[in-house]
């Protein structure tokens, strides 16, 4: 588990899309809000995520078999009956993967939500109030940052009788908020002295309103990307814990499938179908979430947005690439682009167009 290296730490809110005064055409501006979806990465990521969420909801109802049900087809390769083959007990792997989507998505989202709420509360409070509160809260989040997360989770889960998904989500959420809290604190610190926050204060807004209505909306992108990051982390944590057999509440998740497959040395038995699909399911979910996160980064910091076409055709037919430091020259003919001819006009007879001059 390397530390999350999402670039949120470098995001400069307020300098984002909203603050780019040029290039925004009044009237079309409303559509800005949906600009996010225009991002190919975001759209693709959301599409996949949507599929996963759909399966999380309907998965258990559409499984072709009861994922627990044993049958006589032991360790069968994928076939029309069993799309992902079967386990050593003759259980249907496809059904298990489908059934296992719900806990993964549930734990991921819930843990992400818990960690996000905590990090928002702690990070923003620390950043906005400053002083002693800040010192205390920063110290707290640093302690949580320093304590290794997975071992901590292992310990805490073993305190509990049986770990339901809800509890696991809680534990992951409660132990993984600190990184985001740090990022948010830094962001809040930089926002706190913004003129519009000061202006709201000067207008007479109450502190909670400033935090809730002026500060928070400007942190949405950072919070969202922190949320996504935590979801990824939570999913991987859940799967890791399940894989090493620490967490295994009733029911399936992809980690449990991998746990069983590994316990039965599926690959050594040649039963790749038992081991591979769950891993790929995780990878695609992770990729989808990462894509959304990239998109958020780009949304916040328009500089990261690729400028669409980067290859240009010159007048002479060659192609040039847009790059910094050497502006492409499409044509260097001295022909004027607009055909403006001096036309003789008699100024004496001209009547100024009457117009209302707005102030």
């Amino acid at each position, binding site marked *: 588990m390397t530390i999350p290296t999402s670039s949120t730490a470098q995001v400069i809110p307020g300098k984002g899309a909203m603050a780019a005064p040029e290039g*925004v055409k009044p009237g079309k501006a409303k559509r800005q809000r949906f600009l996010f979806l225009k991002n190919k990465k975001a759209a693709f990521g959301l599409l996949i995520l949507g599929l996963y969420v759909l399966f999380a909801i309907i998965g258990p109802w559409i499984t072709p078999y009861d994922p627990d049900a044993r049958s006589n087809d032991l360790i069968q390769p994928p076939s029309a009956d069993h799309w992902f083959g079967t386990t050593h007990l003759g259980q249907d792997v496809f059904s298990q993967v489908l059934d296992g989507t719900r806990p993964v998505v549930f734990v991921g989202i819930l843990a992400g939500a818990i960690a996000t709420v905590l990090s928002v509360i702690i990070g923003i409070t620390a950043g906005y109030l400053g002083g002693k509160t800040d010192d205390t809260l920063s110290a707290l989040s640093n302690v949580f940052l320093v304590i290794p997360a997975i071992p901590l989770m292992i310990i805490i889960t073993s305190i509990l009788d049986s770990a339901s998904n809800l509890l696991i989500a809680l534990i992951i959420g409660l132990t993984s908020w600190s990184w985001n809290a740090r990022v948010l604190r830094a962001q809040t610190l930089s926002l706190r002295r913004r003129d519009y926050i*000061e*202006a709201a204060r*000067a207008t007479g807004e109450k502190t909670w309103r400033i935090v809730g209505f002026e500060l928070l909306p400007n942190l949405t992108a950072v919070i969202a990307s922190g949320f996504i990051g935590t979801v990824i982390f939570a999913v991987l944590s859940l799967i890791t814990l399940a894989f090493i057999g620490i967490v295994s509440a009733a029911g399936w998740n992809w980690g449990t499938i991998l746990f069983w497959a590994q316990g039965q040395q599926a690959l050594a038995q040649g039963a790749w179908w038992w081991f591979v699909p769950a891993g790929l399911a995780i990878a695609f979910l992770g990729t989808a979430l990462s894509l959304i996160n990239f998109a958020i980064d780009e949304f916040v910091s328009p500089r990261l947005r690729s400028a669409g076409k980067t290859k240009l055709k010159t007048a002479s037919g060659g192609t040039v690439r847009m790059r910094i430091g050497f502006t492409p020259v499409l044509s260097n003919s001295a022909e004027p682009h607009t055909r403006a001819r001096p036309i003789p006009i008699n100024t004496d007879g001209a009547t100024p167009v009457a117009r209302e001059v707005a102030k």
Partner: protein
Amino acid sequence: MTQDAKAPSNRPGPSVPSGGPGIGNGTAEVVLEAIGLTKHFPVRRGLRQLFSKERTAVHAVDDVHITLRRGRVVALVGESGSGKSTVARLLAQLYPRTAGDIQLHGKTITVKGGSAFRAYAARVQMIFQDPFASLNPVHTIRYHLTRALKIHHNAGKTDEDLENALRELLTRVSLTPPERYLDKFPHELSGGQRQRVAIARALGADPEALLADEPVSMLDVSIRLGVLNLLRDLKERLNLAILYITHDIASARYFADDTLVMYAGRMVEGGDSETVTQTPAHPYTRLLIDSAPDPDRLAADADPLEEDRGNGEPPSLIRPPSGCRFHPRCPMAMPRCETDLPIRLEIGDKPGHWAACWLYDEATVAAQQPGVAA
């Protein structure tokens, strides 16, 4: 200490003109007054200083007197970092002050937050320098204005009242027709329009005094004028007291009734705008005015002030120069300037024109030749 420390006792005698009674308007009602206003920002102390008694602080504002009167504009000019914004924020009670007094209609007021602060904010409002930064990018114009109205209970009772109040506000700042602007986001407006919204927001509180901190310095030349004219218009129509902060002394001349000049946290000169800009008394004011671009001057003209001392750098505010803070750069500096804090001295060319400079103390000038500091 200088005699200024006792300032409250001899206010508002003509010897201590603060905002300075302008011609004919001297009797206008005082709305907001700052007396001996001082703000030191503590610098975080290091370990070494932990044990010493000495406190380090940025002396951002020292002993400032300002009087804002109904229907008049007072300009506060000075170079960057001279403490102008700090004065405005102190007056808006956004910072607690280190010393001095802020009086609203003659009553000392110190508020930190809560309803007392809101009551104060209802009467004194501030406009920020940067219209691009002072509106929250995530909220519509409607939100900004509605909040301003609601906080100060000017929103009326019904939705209709609110709607009318909003239209009225926008109309007042000449953003017409109001419907076109109400539901826009700040980024959809030009700089001038944004600054108008910021002004409308301030007006939403229905204040008596408006503190405008460089309201046009971030705006394009061709738009500046519109905003300034609007402010002047409001001053006349609503009888507002306005503090106009700027570093552009020419615009102070154009727009303000009175002008105060600040240097390194202190007031160095004051008087009615025309006098201060046309016959500047303090060497710093002169430097400022001589430095302002002047199309009528020939480019090659050697400037006598060009070879000023101290590399033209403003002084450190953590350890400000002793005596007159301008003396290290002052071509006319006298030995006394290095030691004694100059008091406000009446210039005498126009009533209310004063400067804090020993050059106007005849005894000192006689004893020490200006320009030959030890």
